[in-house]
């Protein structure tokens, strides 16, 4: 028994979890958990502060990686075989449809959750100093999520895939100067063919996921280094000293009281530098409002993980991912539609390819990236930010409206057809 205890101790290397020291050590002696702080603010754990959207997005990504690797075992990225492999996944492979459904619904869910997460961060003003750059990283992650969805869309090589990608990549070719070349490099040719399928596969399974993982690490690290989640909006109190100082910068006010160095402890450089840190810190008054990450934060994260996985599994049991007939370059389905999250874009493109397909989305992305640097208002309280909240709301509603029009109100020949009217496609 002693040996077992010794082995266990050698693995966990911490005090029992019944002690505060053990609870802290669980976090900071563990490489997988050390991204958490030992203690978190109680208010930040409240569901109504973050709706756990960041965690849900991350867990969806985990589901996507897991199911994606499984699907890779039965998929060849080459035109006729790719579609045959989809049919195999649908009818032959054990649990094939279920895995493919999970992959598809988690992918759609990730697009939705990344977007909602961005809205939450915007409405709570959490992109403000010192978190400006993490917002930019978040926007890049949103673009990568869309890139992953778009490249994955081609892989089944059915009519839906083929025409969505034909339309999508042609939109890109309207970009001035480089559009045609970028399209050629992306497709490895001039039309969506076998070279395009292989390149989209490489982007989908290797390039984009690597960047997502890298940026996610940066994103999480910065959340931690910026002092955890932003304070809930309802906890904001006007503070006397709002000014934050970069470490090492000259301080006009009195230097921090640094305790005399003890002979029993080694000190890192960070501990003896004076000045207030640039990130949010927990003041002694707030210390009472904190709880240990273990178990309070971990239990919530585990519940969110289980809820996310369960939801996706339930959806995958009852809703099947579509698979149309084999891609046919000669026959365009009527109407031919891009993936739903690009239908707002396609709606704009139906009016003008250059303005709607290139200028508008480029400006949208640049505006999103610039938000934390253009918004000079230091206050995070909604009452102080009415104008920008309304502007963002109009932006979100306009996007959703375009997507709804493109999805439900566009029929054959891209004419306005309400969803309750049935049109026989292909009829002259």
């Amino acid at each position, binding site marked *: 028994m002693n040996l077992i205890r010794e082995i266990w101790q050698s693995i966990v290397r911490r005090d029992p979890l019944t002690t505060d020291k053990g609870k802290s050590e669980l976090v900071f002696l563990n490489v997988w958990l050390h991204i958490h702080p030992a203690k978190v603010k109680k208010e930040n754990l409240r569901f109504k502060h973050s709706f756990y959207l960041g965690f849900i997005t991350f867990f969806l990504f985990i589901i996507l990686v897991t199911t994606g690797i499984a699907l890779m075992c039965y998929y060849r990225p080459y035109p006729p075989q790719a579609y045959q492999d989809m049919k195999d996944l649908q009818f032959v492979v054990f649990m094939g449809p279920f895995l493919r459904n999970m992959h598809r619904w988690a992918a759609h869910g990730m697009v939705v959750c990344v977007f909602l997460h961005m809205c939450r961060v915007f409405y709570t003003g959490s992109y403000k100093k010192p978190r400006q750059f993490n917002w930019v990283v978040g926007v890049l992650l949103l673009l990568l999520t869309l890139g992953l969805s778009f490249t994955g869309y081609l892989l089944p090589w059915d009519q839906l895939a083929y*025409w969505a990608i*034909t*339309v999508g990549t*042609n*939109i890109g070719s309207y970009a001035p100067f480089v559009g045609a070349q970028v399209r*050629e*490099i992306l497709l*490895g*040719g*001039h*039309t969506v*063919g*076998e*070279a395009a399928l292989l390149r989209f596969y490489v982007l989908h399974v290797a390039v984009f996921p690597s960047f997502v993982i890298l940026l996610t690490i940066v994103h999480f690290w910065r959340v931690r280094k910026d002092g955890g989640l932003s304070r809930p909006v309802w906890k904001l109190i006007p503070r006397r000293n709002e000014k934050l100082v970069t470490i090492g910068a000259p301080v006009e006010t009195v230097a921090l009281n640094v305790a005399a160095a003890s002979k029993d402890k080694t000190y890192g450089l960070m501990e003896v530098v004076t000045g207030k840190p640039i990130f949010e810190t927990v003041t002694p008054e707030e210390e009472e409002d904190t709880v240990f990450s273990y178990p309070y934060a971990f239990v919530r994260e585990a519940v969110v993980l289980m809820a996310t996985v369960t939801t996706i599994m339930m959806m995958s049991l009852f809703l099947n991912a579509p698979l149309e007939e084999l891609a*046919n*370059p*000669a*026959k*365009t*389905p*009527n*109407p*031919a539609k891009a993936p739903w999250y690009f239908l707002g874009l*396609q709606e704009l*493109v*139906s*009016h*003008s*390819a250059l303005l709607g397909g290139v200028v508008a989305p480029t400006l949208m992305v640049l505006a999103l990236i610039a938000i934390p640097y253009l918004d000079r208002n230091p206050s995070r309280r909604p009452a102080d930010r009415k104008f920008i909240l309304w502007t963002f709301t109009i932006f979100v509603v306009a996007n959703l409206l375009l997507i709804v029009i493109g999805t439900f109100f566009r029929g*054959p*020949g*891209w*004419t306005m057809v309400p969803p309750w009217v049935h049109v026989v496609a292909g009829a*002259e």
Partner: protein
Amino acid sequence: MNRRAFLSWGTAGVAALCSAVGVSMAAVARFMVPSVYYEPPQSFKIGNPADFPYGPPTFLADEKIFVFRDREKGFAVASAVCTHLGCTVAHFGSDQKFHCPCHGSVFGPDGAVLHGPAPRPLSWFEVTLARDGQLNIDKDKIVPSSYRLMV
């Protein structure tokens, strides 16, 4: 090493590093552009003139072209690729127009844009008679919509 030597060697070093990185990036970009395209040829034969009926155009799906044959005027070949976003247009006998299913562009009998977001008229390709008596199409040779081959 004195200050002058340090600065000149330093500048040379940085310049060498930058050019090495630049050349490498250019090589990577060039690597991504295929040297050979395994795509269908732009110039190809479609068969004997007698294979094509008079009246409504014949649609060749693989080549994405419409072959028109008129008793008085002869042969003409139109592209079936919409100039907006590359969808394949359909030719309706009822109104003699080309209709794009993706964004509702409509092209007139001569390929001119009548309606919708298409930026350019449909292309017409050169059609010639090859030595073996077959019709030859060259997609790289764009001709005016009035071009006809009398056989």
